[in-house]
């Protein structure tokens, strides 16, 4: 199982979909799991869905599916979940929803042993909280069927050798800092290791002499001086961006994480493009 994590807006879903496409290419098939309405995953997979099974887990269905074995039958689960008092309680108690979604992921993996399951996890903060739920539940409950459910998820999903963690990040200093905090939290609170960090949108460098040339033109006076000055400012900002990217990658490398880089594209790259870039970095 590959659990893809990262903060919102870093391109997590696209990377996860591309990894699923790569796995399908390499091993014949793969499962791509998404929480939510399925729309963003479908969009990310567009053109790369060959042999990728796209599974969308919705909270309400997950609850029912996870509760059925607990209560013995679908009917009993429906009776409890549909109870007037339980409904508002379940809506206000989010940990239960998370536990049930993890349980469904566990079931999917258990049903298809040998097939890689790529999970697009929720954005940072939430994702560590999710993975912590089984252990918290185990410690908190002590015994009983719900305890056993937590224990099973803990052993079969949130366990070394069962799941690999991939963290998606951007080549910006503060995003990298948050990413390193996330990695530390994953190790500390779930006992899992971070397998790989994927640095998305690594900026392309502008021609090296362009900044000096633009500055010289600006200082030389003449009709183009003002425009050249503005170009120099733009190129200086780009150079600073690239420098920050390089520094960020160096900071990451010091932490001994394996790194894959994906270049910055001015508009949405397709899963196929990203899969190609990831393969070039050694993925698959």
């Amino acid at each position, binding site marked *: 199982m590959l659990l893809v994590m990262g903060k919102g807006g870093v391109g997590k879903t696209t990377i996860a979909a591309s990894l699923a496409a790569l796995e399908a290419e390499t091993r014949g098939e793969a499962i791509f799991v998404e929480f939510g309405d399925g729309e963003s995953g479908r969009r990310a997979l567009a053109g790369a869905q060959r042999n990728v099974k796209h599974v969308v887990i919705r909270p309400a269905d997950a609850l029912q599916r996870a509760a059925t074995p607990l209560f013995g039958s679908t009917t009993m689960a429906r009776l409890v979940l549909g109870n007037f008092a339980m409904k508002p309680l379940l809506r206000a108690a989010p940990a239960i929803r998370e536990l049930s979604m993890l349980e469904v992921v566990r079931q999917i993996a258990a049903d298809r042993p040998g097939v890689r399951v790529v999970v697009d996890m929720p954005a940072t903060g939430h994702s560590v909280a999710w993975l912590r739920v089984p252990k918290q539940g185990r410690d908190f409950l002590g015994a009983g069927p719900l305890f056993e459910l937590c224990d099973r998820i803990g052993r079969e999903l949130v366990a070394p050798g069962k799941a690999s963690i991939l963290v998606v990040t951007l080549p910006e200093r503060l995003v990298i800092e948050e990413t390193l905090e996330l990695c530390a939290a994953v190790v500390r609170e779930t006992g899992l290791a971070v397998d790989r960090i994927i640095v998305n949108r690594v900026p392309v460098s502008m021609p090296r002499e362009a900044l000096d040339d633009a500055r010289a033109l600006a200082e030389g006076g003449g009709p183009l001086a003002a425009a050249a000055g503005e170009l120099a*400012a733009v190129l200086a900002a780009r150079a600073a961006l690239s420098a920050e990217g390089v520094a960020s990658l160096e900071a990451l490398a010091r932490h001994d994480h394996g790194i894959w880089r994906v270049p910055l594209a001015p508009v949405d790259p397709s899963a196929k493009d990203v899969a190609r870039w990831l393969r070039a970095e050694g993925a698959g």
Partner: protein
Amino acid sequence: MSKAASPMVVVCAGGGGVGKTTTSAALALALARKGRSTLIVTIDPARRLAGAMGVAITDEVTRVPLPAARGNLAALMPDPRRSLHTFAEQLFEDEPAAKARLLGNRLYLGLADAAAGVHELVAMNLVARAAAQGSFEVVVIDTAPSRHAIDFVTYPSRLAALLGGRTVTWLAGLAQRAALDVPSGKAPSGLLSWGTGHVEHLLARVTGPNLVSDTGALFGDLAVVRERFVDLTQHAADLLLGPRAAYALVTAPTAAGRDDVLYLAKRLEKLGRSARAVVINRADTQPAPYARALAGERGLSPAITLALTMLDEERASRASAADACAAELGKHLRGVPLVRLPYIEAIAPEAVVAALADELTSQLATLLPAVSR
């Protein structure tokens, strides 16, 4: 809080990575420059922006130093990690014992990361308080980067319904019976149906006694402050759903950002509201004046020529993506004005905010709630 003193509210919502925080800050800055007393509230504070604005991430309203501005700008960037604590304080200001119990409840602490909405609720309570005390004309709210960003406006009523409903009575009773080791199965009052006895029995069997007693204790305490809670949340709901609130949806020219905006627009419709405007970031159509001045100029160095070509290719692909995005948005959100903002070539966040504020100055009427003043 008198009606006359209530400020206009602009809620900025959108998916992750679309530049929402920067846009919200720029809008607030543009308003302040126009002489409007403005409060910017960041639900999910970006340390980088907070630092750039010279603002700390705390529950206090902080004045933002503004050189050469007539109006005043203040910021409120509450720390999400403290929100459960703040929430307990907001609820149990006069009852320290209950507050201590709540902060010691394992279940309550377990909600810390999972309880989406509590932080927003806390933030909105702080906003309501600031609005009542200060004299802000406009409050700009930068929501969390999520499709569920505006769900928090319904969270107060959901929690209030839970606290006010039969669930709490049932849970409190359940906990008592668990503590006394009374076999469950019989409902203590006519309020609870026969079916609930069964549910209770099944639930206790599945979850074990710890969960039941902690849940009961938690809701027992919360039920006591029900009225205070409803009162607190009512102010927040008034601010967010009243006629003086407008929703600005923010996107970048990406399919993900666009779909998030369309989703949020649907959510708003369900709440009986509509989007005031959609802001598309990084959507410059024309080459910048400097690029036009240099284009085709002979005698430029090869490096400059190549750099100009690369920059223009980037701009062109951004522009065509932005055009496609705008067309799609226009098709689904008829009558909602689109505000296109350029890509700002700067790295310091304060420089980006200042440049976007310049762009927004002429568009303020499009983004503010349409109320007669």
